[in-house]
């Protein structure tokens, strides 16, 4: 009896000790959820969410300290994916009305200063020093970084138009049951 109790106690203490040491030694620095959330974000580090970059936003999201709707370039699709992963229901009504945008450079005002080119996180702007710059509309994801940095206010944001290619039927009326 005593031998049994004694041996189990010794085993318990020993195994507990090993687990305790392992938890310290094999400690995971990063929150895996944070990494996963960061993978869902566009990764353009535009800062429109109010955080310095995508990783900081992901960290705040993992701690439930930031709303899932803050990522402007990600739009509705990213907000939905984040809400699904975090298991929360997000109010996406704001995103319903928000139309994706792209940047356009007014060629009369552009002085060819290269600032927007250096700042663009997806290399959507082409141009050279003292030459007029232009935005490749299909590549631009509307983060507005260039809009903010342009010294001559030559950049404005345009709404991505509804075309025959992206139009689809609206949801049938809400009065239906």
């Amino acid at each position, binding site marked *: 009896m005593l031998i049994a109790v004694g041996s189990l106690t010794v085993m318990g203490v020993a195994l507990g000790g090993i687990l305790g040491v392992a938890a310290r030694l094999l400690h995971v620095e990063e929150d895996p959820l944070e990494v996963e959330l960061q993978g869902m974000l566009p990764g353009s580090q535009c800062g429109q969410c109010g955080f310095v970059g995508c990783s900081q936003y992901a960290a705040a999201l993992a701690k439930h300290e930031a709303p899932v709707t803050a990522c402007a370039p990600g*739009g509705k699709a990213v907000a939905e994916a984040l809400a699904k992963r975090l298991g929360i229901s997000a109010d996406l009504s704001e995103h319903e009305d928000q139309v994706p945008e792209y940047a356009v450079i007014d060629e009369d005002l552009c002085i060819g200063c290269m600032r927007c080119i250096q700042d663009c996180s*997806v290399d959507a702007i082409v141009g050279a020093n003292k030459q007029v710059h232009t935005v490749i509309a299909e590549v631009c994801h509307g983060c507005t970084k260039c809009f903010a940095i342009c010294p001559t206010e030559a950049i404005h944001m345009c709404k991505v138009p509804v075309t025959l290619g992206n139009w689809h039927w609206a949801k049938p009326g809400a009065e239906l049951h």
Partner: protein
Amino acid sequence: MKLFPVRGGIHPEYRKEGSSEKAIVALPLPRALYIPLQQHIGAPAEALVAAGDTVGKGQVIARAQGAVSAPQHAPTSGRVTAVTEIAAPHPSGLAQMTIVIEPDGQDAWADLPAPIADPFAADPQAIKDRVAQSGIVGMGGAAFPSAVKLNLGTQHELEILLINGAECEPYLTCDDRVMREHADEVIDGARIMAHALGAPRIVIGIESNKPQAIAAMTRAAAAVANVEVVGVPVQYPMGSERHLTQAITGRETPARKLTADIGVVVHNVATARAVHHAVRFGRPLISRVITVSGGAIAEPKNVEAPIGTLIFDLVVFCGGLKSEPKRLVNGGPMMGQPLPSLEVPVVKGTSGVLALTAAEANEHPTGPCIRCGTCITICPCGLSPVEMASYIRKDNLDGAQKIGVQDCVSCGSCSYVCPSHIPLVHFFNYAKGALAAQDRERRRSDRVKTLSEARTIRLEKAAEAKRAAMAARKAQSASTAAASTADDKASA
């Protein structure tokens, strides 16, 4: 020939008698033709003409762009008056780039490619190229570039070329008339397509409510081997390519696959006729037969009209409207789309124009679902419309996707039978569009991620190179300094 049963389906009133006995009549040249650059699935064509240019009949006025696309040709000779945005024959009423031609009345042909003398001895690729350069697209309504479909033989083992003459939509009689009046041309086009595809058998499926068409086609097919004309049961949606294939072969096309995966390629009868014209005479697709019908049309007709004719001109040619239409429909009443106005052009996929009276449209306010399950019984795709609609109503598109909303062919049978008049197919059309939009969004954000990662790597590489250059320069200056001190020492 043994036929196989197809599940579900409905038996609407066919109402084809308004136009079925009217021979095809050619429309006199209208005052202006409006040729949209996109009349097909895929990338829009690129305009090759500008305002002021003169064009000959059949001249290429816009070239295909990309792998899935189709060129556009001038339907008659005349002068290009503008290349501008004009409302498209699309429920959204959005504008698209359109070439406007003012006919000169000569109707003079431009230089056409030479006819292929013996198409059955020709290289299949030559036929596919001719079909592609003639701008032929599926004329049953979907307008998918036919040359791309003729290529399916290269990747799939094909058994049957199925020519679709089912025409299961109520009111429409254009395919019926083409088969009755131009049976030889359809059979010849079908044989040319089968040669291009490498398909050993040709089956022509016609709903048995068109006995004259079946008789005419059987007569025309009697002279040639390997062509069978089959009367299929009158059951909407028999004209859907998946369902017609099932009725003929007994094989069901798997979800998200093509009929080619089970050895069958389906083309419409009017497409076969267009292939005949392109191969035998070098003529591109510049006109098509359209049924103009419905209770509000004074004299319903089957009209052969140049592509680009305003629907307004078609309606005027058919005696105009005799009463106020409740609905203007582009295509048949089951799967057709509402027309934004009469001021839109006829395109390659326009099979019919219907002006329906209020009695024909038969619209009712929507009531609550009574859980009768009729929609499940009749769904020809084996789906559960009531369940999908309740998911979509609650914005759970993923739920609807899981139970197969993307396998819905939008035939509208569920909406037709619903005793509560719930617009079920509208929900599915919305869901399919919204899911496609989500998919585009996802692909876009993936691309943003790839681009920004590539940029980060590039910036790191540049910084690394700079550091390396700096270090090299430092090392060099240090060694020069050391050398000069050594020299100093030596001289001292």
